[in-house]
């Protein structure tokens, strides 16, 4: 029962991030030039990246590895998300070099908190028992609370308090669900839950085996856990916090929440339902189908009325979560095909690229104008043609128009829905895409068709250009050549079900 070197090797990406965070805070004490810590943070990301790639090679040869007596699993699925999160982190830190100047002299704390939260998200992607899920979820969300309130403006603190209260509430609900899952099965290991489920009948004889999920305790556990995760996914009816927090938080933090945080939440939902509750897929599939339809409709319809661009991106994040829930719901009735899971993974990769491109453009523009209303984007097409082009391209992709990754991703999601006998869900998805075109294209129209309020040109630092370039290239390349990411997503999803 000790800690072995092998365990440490298997968590080396997370370990590297935590060490990097500590190094940055310590460096900050001795260095005079505070901007330097950001460079250290970005360069240091090479270590977790290399570690995750190395583990990918090991796992590709020898199959999944368990660490810490089965609390964490290192498989292609977990590594897919770890690589995705490291990539998001790198671009995010690059793009926010200018933005975090305003936190001076506290840039180091900002970077360190982002890294710690990312470490929690990476652990979450590889969590294999309920205790690990809870602990990594807390490690991921507590730094984010501090980050949301980091601007210390009234708005930012308000967003921080809202995020803290709702995240605490959702953690408590989630844990209560875990407690009942544990009580019903006697185990916290995700892989052991599935075989243990038939024993519920012996615990609650009155429940019998005929009910969905096989018993009241498991049913209660699954519903409470879904509600708890629903908060992280910004799934309706647990989405109320999303627009407020996105508006109040520093923009890079909103981008982090929208991409990395959401990706890890989908990772654990997929793992919990496919691995631990795979036997009851007929029961939860329809639940997620309804939640997906409601989530994307609410997100898209309410987004139309928004006048603040960050708030609009918040509602857009809700709608996009709805699209991805289609993939979660689209579990094939025979349980053999993983089309739904792999389309979610592909979409998460593409979504990270297009959403980051949109956020980076918004960061660059609002940094120069200091105004995050949609009206302030008027004439941006003339003031900064390139950044406007990046934003327009990202919005086209978010709408789902070819030749972008947004189109490809939706194609795979809707295809998975149809092959899982959920054609109506695909129809709802297509109709929603049409609705979303109204507000996404509304921004494009404002940028190009309206006269600028002032003629002053908008510039961006080199680092932001690099980040925007990489994200935009990702959107375009994945749009015309999606096969390689789809292959990786297929390998990753394949390790979900043994």
């Amino acid at each position, binding site marked *: 029962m000790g800690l072995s070197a092998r365990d440490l090797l298997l968590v080396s990406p997370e370990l590297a991030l935590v060490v990097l965070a500590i190094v940055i805070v310590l460096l900050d004490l001795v260095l005079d030039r505070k901007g330097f810590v950001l460079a250290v943070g970005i360069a240091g990301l090479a270590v977790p990246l290399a570690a995750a790639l190395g583990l990918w090679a090991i796992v590709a040869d020898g199959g999944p590895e368990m660490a810490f007596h089965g609390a964490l699993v290192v498989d292609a699925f977990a590594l897919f998300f770890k690589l995705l999160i490291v990539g998001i982190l790198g671009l995010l830190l690059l793009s926010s070099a200018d933005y975090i100047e305003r936190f001076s002299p506290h840039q180091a704390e900002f970077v360190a908190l982002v890294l710690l939260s990312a470490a929690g998200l990476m652990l979450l992607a590889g969590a294999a028992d309920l205790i690990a899920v809870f602990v990594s979820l807390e490690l991921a969300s507590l730094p984010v609370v501090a980050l949301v309130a980091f601007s210390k403006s009234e708005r930012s603190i308000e967003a921080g308090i809202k995020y803290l209260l709702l995240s*605490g509430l959702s953690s408590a609900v989630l844990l*209560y669900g875990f407690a009942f899952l544990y009580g019903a099965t006697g185990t916290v290991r995700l892989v052991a839950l599935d075989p243990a489920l038939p024993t519920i009948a012996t615990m609650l004889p009155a429940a019998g085996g005929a009910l969905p999920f096989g018993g009241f305790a498991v049913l209660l556990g699954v519903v409470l856990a879904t509600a708890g995760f629903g908060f992280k996914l910004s799934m309706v009816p647990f989405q109320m916090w999303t627009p407020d927090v996105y508006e109040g938080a520093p923009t890079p933090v909103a981008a982090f929440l929208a991409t990395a945080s959401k990706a890890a939440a989908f990772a654990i939902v997929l793992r919990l339902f496919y691995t631990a509750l795979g036997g009851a897929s007929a029961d939860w599939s329809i639940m997620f189908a309804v939640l997906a339809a409601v989530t994307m409709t609410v997100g898209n319809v309410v987004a139309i009325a928004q006048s603040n661009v960050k708030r609009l991106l918040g509602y857009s994040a809700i709608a996009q979560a709805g699209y991805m829930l289609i993939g979660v719901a689209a579990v094939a009735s025979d349980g053999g095909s993983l089309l739904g899971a792999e389309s979610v993974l592909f979409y998460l990769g593409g979504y990270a690229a297009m959403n980051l491109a949109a956020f980076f453009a918004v960061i660059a523009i609002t940094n120069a104008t200091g105004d995050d209303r949609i009206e302030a984007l008027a004439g941006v097409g003339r003031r900064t043609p390139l950044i406007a082009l990046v934003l327009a391209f990202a919005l086209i992709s978010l709408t789902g128009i070819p030749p972008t990754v947004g189109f490809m991703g939706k194609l795979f999601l809707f295809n998975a829905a149809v092959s899982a006998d959920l054609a109506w869900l695909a129809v709802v998805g297509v109709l929603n895409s049409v609705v979303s075109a109204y507000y996404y294209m509304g921004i494009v129209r404002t940028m190009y068709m309206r006269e600028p309020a002032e003629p002053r040109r908008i510039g961006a630092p080199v680092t932001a250009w690099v980040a925007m370039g990489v994200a935009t290239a990702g959107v375009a390349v994945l749009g015309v050549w999606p096969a390689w990411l789809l292959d990786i997503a297929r390998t990753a999803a394949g390790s979900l079900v043994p």
Partner: protein
Amino acid sequence: MLERLLILSVVLFCIGLYGVLSRRHIIAILMSIELMFNAVNVALVAFSRYVTPADLGAPGGLAENARYVLTGQGLAVFVIVAAAAEVALGLALVIALMRRTDTLDITAVNLMRR
């Protein structure tokens, strides 16, 4: 006996949930969330004691099977730690808010909904 403990846990959880939904003072809401966490702990410890697959009479006895018996209690310890961290963060934010607005009424904290 398990039933009684679970009833206690559900009652605690519901009081906490009601508090979160009805109280307006931020610290009262934080306390209500604590109550919900403690309801979880009661349930976990109760389950840990009464529902466990490990046969304590099996070879090796308690020493060998302790990790099964203690799983729920182990999770409860993590919950206590996480709840404490959450309250620490919450109080820091409360102080920051107090410095700016002089109110801790959650309904008054609605800049973005105006």
